[in-house]
């Protein structure tokens, strides 16, 4: 527990303990822990002297922050316009069906998180999804299942 907060303190200090750095600090914390646990947010609130309601306003406003744990493997389906006109909705349905979770959710065993993104900048491959670091161009259910099975 102490170790966790020490890591947070290090992040806060790297950003100069300034209130203005709050978003940058939270981004780093999110990267470190893959989500923003409540105790850590309360700690940040005290350290930077920022009210907790303010921190929750911020963390629920920006899409990148998560207040629930994320899975060990992330599946992101691109919902950009280019992918949309090439069938992104159907790709999302397929992925959701294979993983058994809806977009925004994490599987019960915390293995997978399924999320949507607005654009991956890989429009030529659309509809495209990114499974951890691998881009999959219009994968079939079978392709997605194979990828999911290969995850630890």
């Amino acid at each position, binding site marked *: 527990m102490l170790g966790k907060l020490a890591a947070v303190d290090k992040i806060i200090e790297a950003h100069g303990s300034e209130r203005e750095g709050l978003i940058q600090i939270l981004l780093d914390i999110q990267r470190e822990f893959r989500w923003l646990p409540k105790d850590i947010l309360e700690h940040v609130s005290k350290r930077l002297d920022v009210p907790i309601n303010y921190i929750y306003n911020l963390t629920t406003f920006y899409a990148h922050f998560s207040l629930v744990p994320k899975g060990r493997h992330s599946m992101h389906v691109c919902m950009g316009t280019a992918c949309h006109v090439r069938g992104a909705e159907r790709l999302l349905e397929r992925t959701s069906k294979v993983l058994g979770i809806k977009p925004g959710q994490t599987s019960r065993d915390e293995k997978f998180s399924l999320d949507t993104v607005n654009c991956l900048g*890989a429009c030529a491959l659309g509809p495209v999804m990114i499974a951890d670091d691998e881009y999959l161009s219009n994968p079939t259910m079978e392709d997605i299942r194979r990828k999911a099975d290969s995850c630890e």
Partner: protein
Amino acid sequence: MSEIEKLLNPSDFEAFQKKIVEGRDPNRTAVAVCSGPGCLAYASGKVFDRFKVELLESGLAEEVTLAQTGCHGFCERGPSVVILPDEICYLRVSPDDVKEIIETTLRGGGIVERLLYKGEDGLPVQKESDIPFYKHQQKVVFGDNKRIDPRSIDDYIARGGYTALVKAITTMSPETVIAEVKESGLRGRGGGGFPAGAKWEATAKPPADTRYVIVNADEGDPGAYMDRGILEGNPHSVIEGLMIGGYAIGANEGYIYVRQEYPLAIDNVLYALEVLREIGLLGENILGTGFNFDIIVHKGAGAFVSGESSALMSAIEGRVGEPRPKYIRTSISGLRGKPSCLNNVETWANVPLIINKGADWFKSIGTEGSKGTKIFSLVGNVKNTGLVEVPMGMTLRQIIFDIGGGIRDDKEFKAVQTGGPSGGVIPEDMLDLHVDYDELYAAGSMMGSGGMIVMDKDTCMVNVAKYFLEFLSDESCGKCVPCRDGIDQLLEVLQRLTSGNALEEDLELIEDISLMMKECALCGLGQSAPNPVLSSIKYFKDEYIAHIAEKRCPGGVCKALIAYTIDKEKCIGCGKCMKVCPVAAITGEKKSPHKINNALCVKCDSCYQECPAKVQAVTKIRQADVITAFATSEEAANE
């Protein structure tokens, strides 16, 4: 650049530049492996790694420069590798092709023909600039990408980099810099197209001890990635532009607000800034001119509304990125209440060119009201997806058909969407429209940041309008009633439309809500949110009517309104559809017509896509016709 010496005055810089240029052989062979987002997705990283290994093994490593460069543009055929100086362009290169390229081209001076672009006539094209996709472009901002390793300031300086900055701070007064930018007619490349020079002037005017210049790299339009292409591939061009702006406006601090989803862009910019500080082009008293300037990178945590200038500044201050409600321009009171000038990536990247080549040169490109070039991300149902840079005033038809190669699978064109979620759709009979700020606006769309999404006949315009509203309902900050509840209610109407439950008077409701939002919403996001709906009603009203009156989706997209059937006459019984159906709704014997059980069908579209293009036996019909279709068919009677 092994030993670093600080450049203390303009002649130091000149000597530094001279040394770099003289140390370079323009005829030296170089291999540029594209590492833009598209090519990286096609595993261009592995191609680069293989080149590194194989060049060493072949003993050519000393003679050949190898670079991982930013986006070349032709994402459709990635990974792309260009061999300089001859500009031989290899496409769809896999790691296994590397050895052959080295032996045949680098060592032997020959061509690996199978990796060349082949046109419609089947003839291979060797030189990159001869490929139709590139031939019609005018690459001014984006052209240096293949010649620059984004991690090498030497590469940038060898191409004339930072000479515009030196020219500005040593020979021009801030006022003349602003006058030059004003004269050039440069307009903001990020959205509304506000004249950049006027914005600079307005920021420089009010009395203040501190001013800020800011790069908006929070590229949020779905389907647009031009800014990413520039920032990843040529970060120095943006930095140099920002510095010139800082000098002109009287700012000592600049910010680059870049979305955290672009880690490579962030890394490349941070690296560039580090190098600039080391050689003294950033910091106190730059080149002894008394100009102090530094740049801070701020990562965006994901909010489309941050594209709104006051919201972006709130985000830099570490606050919720809500647009400021006050009617005060950010040029008077922006970041931390100080005069601030925000321009997007592409706008800043144009600045060094204007300073170096002059306003007259810049003005010679483009149309009356829109000068220079514009980068578009040409995507969607188009053959050649990629980033394209064209002079303002080119027609949509030229961009989509000459550069883009037309519609994928040679389907029929239906519409092109520009301007992102604040823009609109443009129909076929307006394809000869000249792309500039004012013409697009007059057509009910806008330039926006440069997304150009091509749609074929299998696109449902109501569904597209709904898509944009869904995007915006997620991205609205939720503060003001018109935007928050307006989008919510509009979406509700579109939901009714796509499910076949809408009434004629719903179109009136859409209009009432939309007009009010356009004038009453607090910020640009809410004011422009109805545009995608209004423009699609304007040009594709018949599709809306079809959804209402006939419960029919002409694009064949809205699930509630369509059903799948197999044409007995056309089906060859190949079994492909049966294999791909996830719910076993398709039955049939090999080589005899198959059948879809509509009660089981989940309308996943797989069979439709799988059915060979020559056969096209799987067709979409109205859901409302399913019952009748079954009642009249013999098989149904037997069952």
